[in-house]
């Protein structure tokens, strides 16, 4: 594996909990180059030839294996678009850990746009974890615009955890999913913005097959002068159940716009949207203060729990 410096190692740890080379299949991308790759018997990682990116082929029936594909960027001014396609075979059960960490100490913007497509075959189960993290005190912005597309065949199940807690200045996340019969999608998004950061998260989920279901839940905190938009649309084209939820805390001058979108095109579609935005509950602060915490410490505990 290519030598990584301390900053790159720290970023790797932040986005993928990695101290060392992960077990199983992996590809580590550092400053637009591959810093290490391993395929396994069941999981093959190959570079795309036409554009920058990877194809990840997971054999049918692969069980309890994982793929790590973290990206770290430490050069200011780097802009890249990366296309990663995941082919997940029938009956496979895998964990995929992606994530991007940018350290920008320079004055030019650094930007990583990852376009991820998941082709999930029948009965396959995928847990996808994606963390975004930024650091560095240069004037250059840290920009991440992930696009995720999920195509789920019959009875497949996808759980996505998307976390962006710190240091990303500007993000526009788009997630699209199409679900066949009996397929299930669960999304848990955790987001915190501060300073004058901006984060936009758009979901469009089409429930096309009978008994398909989607549950998209975002918990977010907007502090300082930051702005967030949560725009979640579920389209029910069959007998299905869909639920979206935006649960947000605003602090300081933070602003949040939650846009509910439900479209039922079938009499048996059952769709629910919930949204709640407000400041930290006063009684929660008071309770923790009676346990000896200062107001600031109490806030921190409440936010930490909320974003867990």
């Amino acid at each position, binding site marked *: 594996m290519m030598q990584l410096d301390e900053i790159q190692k720290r970023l790797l740890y932040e986005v993928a909990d990695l101290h060392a080379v992960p077990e199983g299949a992996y590809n580590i991308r550092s400053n637009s180059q591959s810093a290490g790759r391993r395929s396994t018997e069941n999981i093959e990682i190959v570079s795309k030839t036409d554009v920058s990116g990877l194809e990840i082929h997971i054999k049918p029936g692969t069980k309890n294996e994982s793929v790590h594909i973290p990206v770290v960027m430490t050069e200011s001014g780097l802009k890249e678009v990366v296309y990663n396609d995941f082919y997940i075979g029938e009956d496979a059960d895998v964990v995929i850990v992606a994530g991007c960490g940018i350290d920008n100490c320079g004055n030019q913007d650094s930007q990583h746009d990852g376009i991820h497509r998941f082709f999930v075959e029948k009965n396959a189960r995928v847990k996808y974890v994606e963390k975004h993290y930024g650091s560095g005190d240069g004037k250059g912005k840290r920009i991440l615009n992930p696009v995720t597309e999920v195509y789920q065949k019959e009875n497949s199940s996808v759980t996505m955890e998307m976390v962006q807690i710190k240091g990303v200045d500007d993000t526009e996340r788009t997630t699209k999913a199409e679900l066949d019969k009996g397929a299930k999608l669960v999304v848990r998004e955790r987001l915190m913005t501060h300073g004058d950061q901006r984060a936009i998260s758009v979901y469009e989920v089409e429930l096309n097959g009978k008994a398909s279901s989607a549950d998209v839940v975002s918990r977010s905190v907007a502090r300082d002068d930051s702005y967030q938009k949560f725009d979640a649309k579920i389209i029910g084209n069959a007998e299905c159940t869909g639920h979206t939820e935006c649960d947000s805390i605003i602090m300081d001058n933070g602003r949040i716009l939650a846009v509910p979108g439900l479209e039922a095109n079938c009499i048996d579609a059952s769709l629910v949207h919930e949204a709640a935005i407000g400041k930290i509950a006063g009684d929660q602060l008071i309770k923790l203060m009676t*346990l000896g915490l200062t107001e600031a410490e109490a806030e921190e505990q409440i936010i930490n729990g909320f974003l867990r």
Partner: protein
Amino acid sequence: MLELKNLCFTVNVDGKEKNIIKNISLSVPDNKMVAVTGPNGGGKSTLAKLIAGIEHASSGKIIYNGVDITDMSITDRAKLGIGFAFQQPVKFKGITVFDLLRIASGKRISVKEACEYLSSVGLCARDYINREVNASLSGGELKRIEIATVIARGTSLSLFDEPEAGIDLWSFKNLIEVFRRMREMIKDSSIIIISHQERILSIADEIIVLKDGELDRTGTRDEILPSLIGTSSAVTDCKMGAVNGGEE
């Protein structure tokens, strides 16, 4: 020792002044368990909130171990050793029972220690330690966790606001034991319990009766309890069974 001197608490309701606590003076000595009782709306919870710093007195003084704490913040009072179990426990999102006990104890406690606090309030610790303190817990479970957080703090003045409310008849016996043990191990601390239950009043050293924001009566248990039996301020066990341990 806690001393209240001419404590008043007035709020403004639709432009009119409403006196909720009216000129209360009393003291709670060390090594004593004091019960506060009286009709609904009498001002018991408000008095506890004034002591814990959640509400601030309109006039009068609160002296704790010789220190004037009348204008102190909630946090500073907590740090001085005042603990408060709420009548209505607060729910959180994402904060677990273990988190709350860890915060309460003020140090890095082990899971085993946290479990001991839960066992002491009659909860089977393993089932609860990693649960979130949210609406998925029943009212009685939340109440017990609330009591456990105060026990975990090891405070020198502990306030319990109707700890028995929402706790079923079977567990109630258990709870009485919890408070009896607390009374035994009081060691230089004091305990204030707001309650309507005769069984709780009967383990207190002193009883304070609050009515319409005023101190109606105060004295030792033997002086006060007989006059309360049969009134709504001292619900007996069988009556309590009928309302499933709840008040109001």
